[in-house]
Structures are given as C-alpha cells and as structure tokens.
C-alpha cells in the first residue's frame, strides 16, 4: 500500500475544508454536551437516587452503535447537521456527566461547608467554590469527550456530515488508500490539537494548581 503524494498535494484545499467541516460538527457537539451535562450533573450530585438513573441512562446510550443512532435520529431531525451534532452530543454525555459528578464529589466537604458557614448561599457556593474546584476533573472529561467526538464524526458521513469521514468512503469506493490514510492521520492530528488546546486552557484557568507545589 503506497501513498500517492501527488493526490495529497492537489487536494490540500479539500483536506482543509473537510477539517473545518469536521470541527463544525464536533465543537458544537461537545459544547452542547457540556451545557446539558453541567445542570444534570449538579442534580445527580445533589440527589443521590437520581445519580444512578442518570449515569446508567447515559451508559446505555453510549452502547448504541453510533451509525444506528444517527439513522434513528433521521426521522426526527432529517438529513441535517443537527442530526450529526445531536447524536454526538448524546455520546459526550456519558463522559461529561460522569466526570462532572465526580468533580463535584471531589470538592472537600470542609471547603463546601466553610463557604456555607461564611454566609454564601447554595448557588453562590456552587458557582464560586464547587464548580471551580471541580474544574480539573470536568476538564479531563471535556478532553476525553472532545477526542472521542472528533474521532466519531466520521461515522456521520452516512448522513452527509462526516467531515474527514468522506475520505474513508471515497477511498473505500475507489479502492484507493491514500485519502483513507490522510483521513486517519488528519483525525489524529485534530484530536491531538484539540487535546493540547484544552490542556492549555485548563492550565490557564487553574493557577492554584500550577502554583500548588509547596514553596
């Protein structure tokens, strides 16, 4: 199996466009997932019996094969990017929900109590103390979810929004490996870049951990 470099050099514009298309499915999916996971996680964290239900449900959704999920969504949202984003969002929930709940669990009871005892309300304590302290664990979840989503977008090429995934279909149909290799490498690169960016964001957002080493 050889790579035809010629093909690559004549298709850089396409690769770039496909990557952008790929990200415009992946990024909204993760953001939407986070938007849904945060309030759900707070509920799951506060109300014990709901925790098992919510986490269990997201676990079950995760086991539904991704292609099937897209197809099942078709009658509801049609052949649109919304279908791709919705499907991927459902997959991110399994990681984001679990990590956010675990992040909230990891906040020491003493710190939470100190905040309440100083006269901060429950909402204030959640926003100013609990969520910031849960941030490292939540961000770990966002990283996993982002990498996973970027890799999964390809599956949505069946409904026309697969981004880089089109290269796989293309190569498969023409029995031509070069675009497939390019697609795999490009997916890995996007995932790596997203992960690195998120590590940087987290580093910037958590100065207390950066400087945490005892002086």
């Amino acid at each position, binding site marked *: *199996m050889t790579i035809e470099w010629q093909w690559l050099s004549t298709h850089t514009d396409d690769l770039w466009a496909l990557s952008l298309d790929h990200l415009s499915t992946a990024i909204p999916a993760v953001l939407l997932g986070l938007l849904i996971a945060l309030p759900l996680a707070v509920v799951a964290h506060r109300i014990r019996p709901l925790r098992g239900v919510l986490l269990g449900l997201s*676990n*079950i959704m*995760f*086991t*539904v*094969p991704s*292609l*099937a*999920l897209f*197809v*099942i969504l*078709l*009658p509801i949202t049609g052949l649109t990017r919304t279908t791709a984003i919705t499907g991927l969002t459902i997959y991110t929930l399994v990681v984001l929900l679990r990590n956010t709940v675990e992040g909230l669990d990891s906040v020491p009871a003493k710190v939470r109590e100190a905040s309440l005892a100083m006269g901060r309300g429950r909402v204030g304590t959640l926003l100013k103390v609990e969520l910031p302290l849960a941030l490292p664990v939540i961000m770990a979840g966002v*990283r*996993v979810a982002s*990498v*996973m989503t*970027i*890799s*999964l977008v*390809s*599956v949505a*090429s*069946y409904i026309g929004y697969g981004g*880089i*995934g089109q*290269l*796989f279909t293309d*190569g*498969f149909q023409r*029995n*031509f*490996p070069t675009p*497939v*290799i390019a*697609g*795999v490498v490009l*997916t*890995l690169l996007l*995932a*790596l870049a997203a*992960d690195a960016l998120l590590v940087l964001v987290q580093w910037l957002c958590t100065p207390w951990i950066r400087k945490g080493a005892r002086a």
Partner: protein
Amino acid sequence: MIDLLSQLAAWLTSSGQWAGPEGIAQRLLEHVQYSFLSTIVAALIALPIGLFIGHTGRGAFFAINISGFGRALPTVGVVTLVFLASGLSMTPVYVSLIALAIPVIVTNTYAGMIAIEADTKDAARGMGMTGLQSLWRVEIPLAAPLIMTGLRLAAVQVISTATIAAYVSFGGLGRYIFDGLAQRDLTQVLGGAVLVAGLAVTVDLILAGVNRVLFRHRLT
C-alpha cells in the same frame, strides 16, 4: 414514534426473525464471537504491557497517553484501511476491534498498578519477595479490580463497535443496521441498535457482577 416502537416490538418478537441462518440468534452468536475473540486477543497483548509498565514504572507516558490515542483513532478509517490492504476477510474487523480494546486495557491495568501504595510494595520486598513474586502475589491481586474494569470497558466498546463487521459484508448484529439502512427500513436499524445495546449492557452487568463477587471483600 409510537408506531415505530410497536413495529420494533413486532420485529423483535416475531419467531421467524429469530431462527435460521439469517436469524437474530445466529447474528447474536456471530456478534458475541467477534467481540469475545477481539477482547481476549487484546487482553493477551495489553495486560503484559500494562503490568510491565506499572511494575517497572518505565513507559508511564505511553501507558497514560495510549488510551487517548485509541480514542482518537477513527474506527471506520482503520477498517477501511486494513480492508484495502488485506482484501475481503475478517482481518480488518479484528484488527480494528483489537486496536480499540488494547489502549483501554493498558491504561486501566497501569492505573491499577500505580494505585498500589509504595508501602505495600516495600513490605513485599522487605519480606524477601523477588520482583516477580511481588508482582504475582501482591501487585496483580491488588490491581485486579481496576484491571477487570478495563476489560469490562473494553468489552462494552468492542461489542458496540463490532457492527462494523457488516460494513465489510460479514455478519453480526451490524447486519440489521446496514441492511436496514440500505433498504430504508428504520425498524430493522432500530432493532439492530437495540440488540447491540442490549448485548453490551448485559455483558457490562455480568462483568460488573463478577467483579463484585470476586472483590466483595475489598473496600474499593
């Protein structure tokens, strides 16, 4: 929606659907076979790697990051690539499923190994155990719950991904999804999805139960 659900129920319960070489029972069996074989082979490769890294501490960076790599690897791309390289056989399916499972098992095995307290390992050495004895009698038993968790996660992922066997025209429950897609038969796609999810959840519960029974005396 209600309509679809009743069709689904009819599809799942009709006796004709279950029997025969194209029946659900047969597809289920194939699916279990692909998944089981892939997970076992992945475990045979991944466990020694995870144990080695955890025991010696060498290659920790690899152990931590390989799961990220595994997640980033697009399964459809890998299947297509191996298919183009090796032709029509089960090889592309097994290669991509094994590639999917290995990172999860390595990372969890490693995590289980490094979670062991240094004091415990010191005590093992202090009592005169060799490195291998400490690994075998102390470290592996202590890491076992997390190793099992890794196997469980890997199995579930493999089961829900094993539908790709149908993508390269083999069997398994993925058949219903791909055939349904080709025939624009939503009931069949949904039926396939429900069966895969059901199988994955069942295996997950069974392995969780095994884990609980094996390690019920542990606090973790």
